[in-house]
Every structure is written in structure tokens, then in C-alpha cells.
């Protein structure tokens, strides 16, 4: 579904990414990890068509990306700033649904159920700036999920929520994903990358490239404690950790 070939990018002369190759099949959930500042957000920006890469090509369903591809949703790392302060939480979530058509009532219903899924049904009528950091982040997640995108890019989406909520959201993500939703999931939490991902891609180096691409083959899935106790899980997280750490 997504095919990245020889992608390179530089900001004002500082090279950030070099020769990134990555192929993602439809419905796959790929975790991306790497040290802070290595270029993960940049990679997502390129895929989203927000930044034109200096070199290399990105294809979605075989067509080169020029501009923002359709059916895309992004949870930005700057989640707080990506919410519109003049809209209520509910309207923020319902906003992208205009693209999907449907009546106003349908959109509101979809927004309400997405907010319910992230545990924020109670604050639907408030404004984003009246929420705590973690709540804002969950609003951004709800917005992306309500949209039912075919390609979902998430940049450190669970960084501001507490451990319990984080586990709930991880499980929520595993529930909502389906054969039609392809997901790139940037995270700093190595456990998390293994827990949610079908594959874990490690970016590293300066400029960064793909230093590891590890398939996750866990016998059990979706039950937090049990999953994390599996030997395969422990092996994978150690391996990912090693790849992230090597300078």
C-alpha cells in the first residue's frame, strides 16, 4: 500500500534522513522507533505530503505522493496545537467527518462514540484549552479514529497519558484497526512498539536510515500482562532496544 524508496531530506542544509526504504502492506501496523531528533516526525510529514522530500519517492497504492493523499489521518506530536480552540471538543472531533458526508447528527454521533472510546464523553462540550494535556491528546486520537482513515499516522500519540489510560488506548488501537486501515505508529516506548506493531522499524544514524525492520510474531495478542510476559516479546524488546541505542 505504502512504498518509500530512497527517501532523503534535509532542513536548510542539515541532512536528517538518508536512503529510507520502507514498504507497508495494506492493513499493517508498523511501529517506528528511534532516538529523539532522528527524523521520525519528518518521515511522517513526508508521507503525509506536508513536507516535500528532497529526494526519493513515496508511493501510495502505486501512485507517487504529491500533496496530501486522500483518506489520511494524522495524530500530531503537537497534539495541543492541532486542536482548534474556538471549537468544542465534540466539534473538533466531528470536523474532519464533513469530508465523509453524512448529516450533522450522524457526524455528532460518530464524534460522541469516538470520544466515549477514549474516555472523554463527559467533556465533549468543553473547549480544548480547558482540558489537561493528556485529555487533549486523547481528543486528537479520537478525531483520527472517528475519521476511519485508510492510512493513519500517529506521532507519539500516547506520550501524555497515564499508564492505565495508555494501555487502554493501546488496546483500543488494536481493536479499531482492520484490514483496511494501515497505520504508522511512532513511539518512544519500546514495549509499546512491540506490543502494538506487526513490525517494528528502527530509525537511527545521522542522517538517519532504517537500521532494523523486525517482524513481530507473538502467539497471543491484546492482553497486556500476558502478552508482555511472552518470551518472544521479551526477546523482541531487547533487540529493538539494542538497535535504538547503538549510536
Amino acid at each position: 500500500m505504502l512504498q518509500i524508496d530512497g527517501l532523503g531530506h534535509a532542513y536548510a542544509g542539515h541532512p536528517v534522513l538518508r536512503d529510507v526504504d520502507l514498504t507497508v502492506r495494506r492493513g499493517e501496523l508498523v511501529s517506528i522507533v528511534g532516538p529523539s531528533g532522528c527524523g521520525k516526525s519528518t518521515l511522517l510529514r513526508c508521507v503525509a505530503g506536508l513536507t516535500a522530500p528532497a529526494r526519493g519517492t513515496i508511493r501510495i497504492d502505486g501512485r507517487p505522493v504529491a500533496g496530501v493523499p486522500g483518506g489520511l489521518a494524522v495524530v500530531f506530536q503537537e497534539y495541543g496545537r492541532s486542536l482548534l480552540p474556538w471549537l468544542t471538543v465534540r466539534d473538533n472531533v466531528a470536523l474532519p467527518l464533513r469530508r465523509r458526508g453524512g448529516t450533522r447528527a450522524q457526524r455528532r454521533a460518530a464524534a460522541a462514540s469516538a470520544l466515549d472510546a477514549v474516555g472523554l464523553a463527559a467533556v465533549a462540550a468543553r473547549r480544548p484549552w480547558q482540558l489537561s494535556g493528556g485529555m487533549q491528546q486523547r481528543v486528537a486520537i479520537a478525531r483520527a479514529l472517528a475519521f476511519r482513515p485508510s492510512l493513519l499516522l500517529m506521532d507519539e500519540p500516547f506520550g501524555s497519558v497515564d499508564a492505565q489510560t495508555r494501555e487502554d488506548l493501546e488496546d483500543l488501537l488494536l481493536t479499531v484497526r482492520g484490514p483496511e486501515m494501515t497505520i504508522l505508529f511512532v513511539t518512544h516506548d519500546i514495549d509499546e512498539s512491540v506490543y502494538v506493531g506487526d513490525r517494528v522499524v528502527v530509525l537511527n544514524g545521522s542522517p538517519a536510515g532504517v537500521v532494523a525492520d523486525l517482524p513481530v510474531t507473538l502467539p497471543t495478542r491484546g492482553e497486556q500482562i500476558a502478552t508482555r510476559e511472552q518470551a518472544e516479546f521479551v526477546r523482541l524488546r531487547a533487540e529493538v532496544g539494542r538497535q535504538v541505542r547503538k549510536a
Partner: protein
Amino acid sequence: MSVASAASRPALAAGRLAAVVARRWAVAVALVAAWEIVTRRRGDVFFPPPSAIVARMHELWFSGPATRLWLTPAATADLLPSLGRMAAGLAGALLAGVTLGVALGRSPRTLAYLDPLLQFGRSVPPPTLVPVFVVLLHLGTTMQVTSIVSGAVWPILLNAADGARSVDPVQTDTARVFGLSATDRLRTIILPSALPKIFAGLRLSLSLALILMVFSEMLPGTANGIGFQLIDAQSRSDLPTTWAAVALLGILGYLLNTLLLGVERRALRGHDATRGGERP
């Protein structure tokens, strides 16, 4: 970022420059051409064609000797005093507008006391204040500069107040937490974040100052300046000169504004470059 081979680079650059110039000026040139054609057809004395206006401008102001930059004595006698008054007025407006605006933006209490007075003041048409000016000030430069300041200060003041009020709360909290002194807070947080808005106000004030310069040269006691020329030509029904003065004001405004844009670009260089128009 496209990679061009070294050989084709200058050609490319020249082409790009030409394209930029064409894009910038195409609309303007088309409009002037249309104006020329229509006015020539109509032959109305009130609306001379642009070519006639340019000829008149040349004759009035730019047919002097090369040693004086081609300026005629009339040009130096009218342009320089006008520009001087305008510069003084704008500088006064900037100083007063930023000081008062920032103070009002940061202090709701002061604002509450002064707001009605300021709102009243900025709605007062300057021509009606002439009797007051004449009594309180001396004819001539003082009165003229005062009238420019009192009219041009408002956009700067209002925009500065607006900018100072809408500083990101996280930034003000940061300043409070680290106990930044009032001057540091002003210098490093409030002014920089209000700066784009202050510039928006300044650009409005610039053109207002130009208009007010004309107005100030209609005040009692004036005997020189572009505005005076304009009014005098109007009273003599000398339309080519009237138009020439109007065009000169437009050109002056354009030049001053371009200058200001340059200053603005430098001043806002450090600001978030991701802002300012769409990204490619």
C-alpha cells in the same frame, strides 16, 4: 530543493527572476495600459491619460540637473519638508503607539480608565480639531507634526495592545515562573510576540501618515509641501498637477512601504519561519 547543474544555474536564476517580476507586475501593467487607452479615448480634461501625468511629474519635479539627482528646485522645496514632517509624525506615532498600546494591552485596569477617551479620540475627524490646534499650538511644523501623530497613532496603538494581550499564556507563565524582570518580560516576550501585529499597524499607519501629511499641509499657515501643491492645484483647477501629485503620493507610499517590508522581514527573521503563508 531541486538540484540544478552548475552550468544552467545562472540561466535558471535569470529566468526565475523574470518570472517573479512578470508575476508581480503583470496586473499593475495591464491596469495602467487599460487606463491609458480609456482616458485617451474619452479625452476628458478631468481624467488625463497616465502618460500626460508622467510628463507633468517629470516637468514639475524630475527635470532638474543631473548634479541634483535630476530633482528640480520645486521638488526639493516641496518633497523634503513633506517627507520630514511625515517621518517625524510617524516616529512620534510609533513611539506613542507602542508604549501606550503595550501598556494598555498588559494592564486591563489602565485600559478601563483610558479606553473611552482613546476610542473617542480616534473617532474625531482631524479637520474639526483645527480650531483647537490653532489655539493650542503654533502654526507650522509643530501643528503639522502633531496632527500627523494624532491621526496615525491609532493602528499602531490598537494592534500593539492586541498583540500584547494575545501573548501565549504558557510564555507569560514561563516568564512569571522564572521571575523575569518587567523590562526583560517586555523585551524578550511581549514585544517580540506583539511585533508582527505592531508591523501590521505600522504599515497602516504609514499610509495614514502620508494622508495626514497631505491634510497637515491644508492646515492654516502652510506654504509648501506636496499636499500644499495638491490643494493649490486643485483650487486652480490644474488637473494634470493634481494628478501628478496624487501619483507621486502613490509612488512615495509604495517606496516607503517596500522599505518598511524590508525592515519587517529583518526584524521578524527570528520568528517561527514555519509561519507566514502556506508552506510549499
